[in-house]
């Protein structure tokens, strides 16, 4: 890897200390056992089809046009959307579609197994591309022709289902930025390990789902994005080896889970609209007051001028 001249670099041969701890060198079976508690449930006490609660907050970044923060227990994601800007360098080409630029980045300290580099790696590029396909169908890009809109996602902490969290954050950030959209959308992830479906997997479960095994069982990760009202699947990402029957089963479960998120999003959006309406009313009343004061002053002055 070429040396990065624009940042401070550490020694080349450094490795995370976690590789030398006893937890690191566990076998597949040990790890698999570690996913369950004594009652046969998942280690955090969830059922297999139970998703983690979603915490959301919009308008977290004051400088952005719209922004959102999404938390799935330990997965923490921030997303910001900026005003459409002119595309530099292609002024002669007119396009009837606006362009969307997406970038998903992991914080260097976000992953539990190793430190991530600061320069974008292949994982991040793949994630960005997936993220873009998932969200761009929902955006009415003909409304900002010849302009480019930037959507940035930063993953502060990775504990599984990052892509789903990022897409959900993007949905809220885009609505916060009042970008014209077909409808709101949501995403959910499921992992399949040993034919068992884990809805909304943690990082440990995702890791195991992608681990190569000798026995020919279904394993992999599936992320599904769906537009609410149209019931359109905009993006389906599947990694691993899963047969068709299992895949269809997973899709059905995920569609249901995605639909469950909708009331939550709608409540949040409606609340935001109310709040902004209230703020606007306050703004209007202040403006009215200032205008009145000014016109009174003007009247006063015109009288003085006339007297003279």
């Amino acid at each position: 890897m070429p040396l990065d001249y624009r940042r401070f670099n550490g020694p080349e041969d450094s490795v995370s200390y976690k590789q030398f701890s006893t937890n690191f060198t566990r076998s597949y079976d040990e790890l698999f056992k570690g996913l369950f508690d004594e009652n046969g449930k998942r280690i955090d006490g969830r059922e297999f089809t139970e998703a983690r609660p979603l915490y959301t907050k919009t308008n977290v970044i004051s400088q952005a046009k719209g922004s959102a923060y999404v938390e799935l227990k330990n997965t923490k994601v921030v997303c910001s959307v900026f005003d459409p800007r002119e595309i530099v360098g292609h002024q002669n080409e007119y396009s009837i579609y606006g362009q969307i630029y997406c970038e998903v980045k992991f914080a260097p300290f976000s992953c539990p197994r190793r430190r991530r580099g600061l320069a974008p790696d292949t994982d991040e590029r793949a994630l960005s591309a997936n993220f873009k396909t998932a969200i761009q169908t929902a955006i009415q890009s003909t409304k900002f022709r010849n302009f480019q809109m930037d959507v940035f996602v930063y993953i502060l902490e990775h504990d599984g289902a990052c892509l789903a969290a990022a897409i959900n954050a993007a949905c809220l950030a885009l609505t916060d930025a009042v970008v014209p959209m077909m409808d709101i959308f949501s995403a959910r992830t499921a992992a399949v390990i040993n034919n068992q479906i884990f809805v909304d997997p943690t990082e440990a479960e995702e890791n195991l789902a992608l681990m190569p095994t000798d026995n020919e069982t279904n394993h992999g990760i599936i992320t599904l994005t769906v537009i609410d009202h149209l019931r359109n699947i905009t993006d389906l990402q599947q990694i691993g080896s899963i047969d068709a029957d299992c895949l269809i089963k997973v899709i059905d479960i995920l569609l249901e889970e995605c639909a469950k998120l909708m009331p939550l999003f709608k409540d949040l959006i409606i609340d935001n609209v109310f709040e902004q309406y209230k703020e606007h009313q306050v703004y209007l009343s202040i403006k009215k007051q200032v205008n009145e004061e000014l016109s009174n002053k003007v009247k006063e002055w015109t009288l003085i001028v006339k007297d003279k």
Partner: protein
Amino acid sequence: MVEEDLKDFKLKPMKCELNFLNKSDGSAILAQGETVVLVSVNGPLDIKSTSQNMEKATLEVIFSSKGGKPTVSDRFKENVIRQTCETAIFGCLYPRTGITITIQELEDYGGLLPTTINCTCLALLNSGLAMRHVVAAVGCALDEAGNLIIDPTNDQIQTATATMYFVFDSREKNLVTGFSTGTFGEGVYDEALERCRAASDLVFNFYRDIVASYCNVIG
């Protein structure tokens, strides 16, 4: 008191040649002690519309170190020089243009950045760009015994607990730019500032001598 102090100050011998490069609008090579820097100034030039400024000239500083590999601290040096020159150059006379300052480090035996700033100032004088004032950079070091050394040599910098560098303007002798390394007390800082302020006169005198001697050549 300041007058008296001035006699005690001795800066490292400075040697300078203006118009060192014949293709650039202004250039200077300056040696302060054993540290040598070459600066060329080009401008005002036409630049691409995205970086044009309606109000004033856009300054671009390119610093190349002796090793040739760019580092983060090189960008920091560029920033220090750009910000310093921005106050010195009368940029509002050249709106929508660019001024490029290219710096090549030739030898670094301590005090590279002050030498670079002084050399840049001389190159700007040579280029004939309108300036508000000239600037002079003076460095000082605090040794382990707590003594202040004006314009330290390389050995003194290596053993010093702190070094401070100041850049003054020629009109009010106000502090334009300052940077430091190491830790020091407030009193030491004040003393260093005053001493360097007094010592900056020597640098300004040097500028005058150089420009006067080149005046004859050009005239």
